[in-house]
């Protein structure tokens, strides 16, 4: 049955690049040293938070009246001690656990909820779309810092309430991105072609819509992680997140702030941790964005 068909034999052809979509993304990332560097840095930060109990040289809760606010290098305290004589390095390592958790969990949850709502709104259109998107518009009408502070402030602070507040902050923008992407994809011919096979709607959604919406949503979500870590630390900085004596970068920054005249270098440490984390997240997100652009 492989008889030649006129006009068929001359189809142009070039060498195949048989690499899957994610394969291509990975391949591109491998040759992007800047993104790789920040990915490694972020991995290092996350790993050191996970293994904080093993890595920390001191007990992060151990106070000492005589060792208050000592400079970096004092008797094995590599980054000095805080206002209660606790080892700053140990507290930073332990603090990363709560800060990163409080920063990343809301983005994850908001991606699931907001992305899901956006997908539904975009594909259903009509009244469903209008109801979902108008509710999102209301939350969009708050500056993100204000909304986070308002909700967690009204709920009385704490790590859990802070995470709920941040999740609520991130749902509307993620929903909007997912809705826009879905609406765009839905109107492309390949979705019509898939519908034209008579295939059930859920299969069309799963194979043809979701895959094309996932990319933009994930890229956007990755860019939010940096904002989320800064906001989460900011909430703790305002006294709305982690409660003392738990170690947390934002809270440490607030406590050490009182000591700028005594030990300025130590005061800056928690902020450096936040900065390194958020820069890594931003750079990684930018790298992913360009690597995931199939058309370039």
């Amino acid at each position: 049955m492989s008889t030649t068909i006129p006009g068929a034999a001359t189809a142009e052809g070039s060498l195949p690049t048989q690499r899957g979509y994610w394969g291509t993304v990975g391949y591109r990332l491998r040759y992007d040293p800047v993104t790789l560097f920040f990915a490694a840095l972020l991995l290092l930060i996350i790993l050191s938070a996970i293994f904080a109990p093993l890595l920390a040289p001191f007990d992060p809760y151990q106070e000492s009246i005589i060792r208050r606010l000592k400079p970096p290098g004092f008797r094995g305290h590599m980054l000095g001690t805080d206002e209660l004589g606790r080892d700053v390095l140990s507290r930073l390592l332990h603090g990363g656990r709560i800060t990163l958790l409080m920063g990343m969990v809301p983005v994850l949850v908001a991606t699931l909820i907001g992305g899901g709502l956006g997908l539904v709104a975009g594909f259903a259109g009509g009244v469903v779309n209008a109801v979902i998107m108008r509710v999102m518009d209301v939350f969009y009408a708050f500056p993100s810092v204000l909304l986070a502070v308002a909700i967690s402030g009204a709920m009385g602070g704490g790590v859990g309430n802070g995470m709920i507040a941040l999740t609520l902050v991130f749902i509307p923008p993620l929903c909007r991105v997912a809705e826009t992407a879905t609406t765009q994809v839905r109107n492309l011919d390949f979705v019509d072609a898939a519908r034209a096979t008579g295939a059930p709607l859920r299969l069309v959604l799963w194979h043809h819509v979701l895959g094309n919406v996932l990319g933009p949503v994930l890229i956007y979500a990755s860019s939010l992680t940096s904002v989320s870590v800064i906001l989460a630390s900011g909430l703790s900085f305002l006294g709305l997140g982690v409660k003392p004596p738990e170690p947390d970068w934002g809270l440490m920054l607030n406590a050490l702030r009182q000591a700028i005249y005594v030990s300025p270098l130590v005061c800056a440490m928690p902020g450096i941790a936040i900065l390194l984390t958020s820069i890594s997240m931003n750079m990684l997100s930018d790298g992913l964005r360009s690597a995931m652009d199939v058309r370039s």
Partner: protein
Amino acid sequence: MFGYVVRRLLAAIPIALGVSMVCFALVYLAPGDPVQTLLPPDADAETVERLKRLYGLDRPLPIQYLEWLWRVMQGDFGKSIATGRPVLDEILRSLGNTVLLATLSVLIAFSVAFILGTIAGRRTGTWLDRIVTGIAVLGVSIPNYWLGIVLVIIFSVELMVLPASGMAGDTFDPTSWEHIQHVVLPVFTLSMIPVGIIARTTRSAVAEVMNQEFVVTLRANGLPEWRVLRHALKNALPPVLAVMGLQFGTLMGGSILVETVFSWPGSGFMLSKAILNRDVPVLQGTILVLAMIFVTVNLTVDLFQSSLDPRIRRG
């Protein structure tokens, strides 16, 4: 155009109502009886009951909301628990200081970022472009409350050239050297994020315009480079101005952390004090006012943009 303006204004009404509902609901998010949050913690049971009736808290929620909305529209936001003064007075006293910070920050951010973005956008891919992009990433990655502390350490503690906190007076006086000194560090700190965002926007807007055919034509016609650039910038300006407007709204609501660092007597600092004192009426009122300002600014930017670009009106 007129129809579009009316449509946009009408569309803002349900959003404003939604915002007011969220603010109203804030009281009910608080743990425990909402009355408790309106009173000092040591209030006795009789006072609680009296206040419940006084504020109509024993009635159904929708009724309570409408009554609250009615009071708010007449400017009655309740009384501060901490100071006992009307919330509206407190907000009005502090709002101007925040407007001052946000305005100066956005103007400075725009001047710096527009130049940076133009340099980068004219020749994308060069080392200059990379430096500008790096600055932009740094601007949005840096926790500004930390940057504020670092600046205080450098300029107040070590160099002792600028004051660390406060405002030196109740209202800003641009002729007073002391007032100006106090405003430098907060404004610089607050302008970091807008610098990053505006530089990015300018860069991509300029890069896009530079690749358009009309610019290529201008070049081909032998126009001097600075005049080509002037044409290009004129076309790149509207989206940048729009982003600048949005940033102003964001700073108005987002200056809480920076104001706290510098003890700047604006609405953000007041908000953070209200949180510490569990002063819910002030919290609710301030957030409502700031969110409404944000909505208004966004609406203004939207209308401004559509007046420049007729394509948007159709959408």
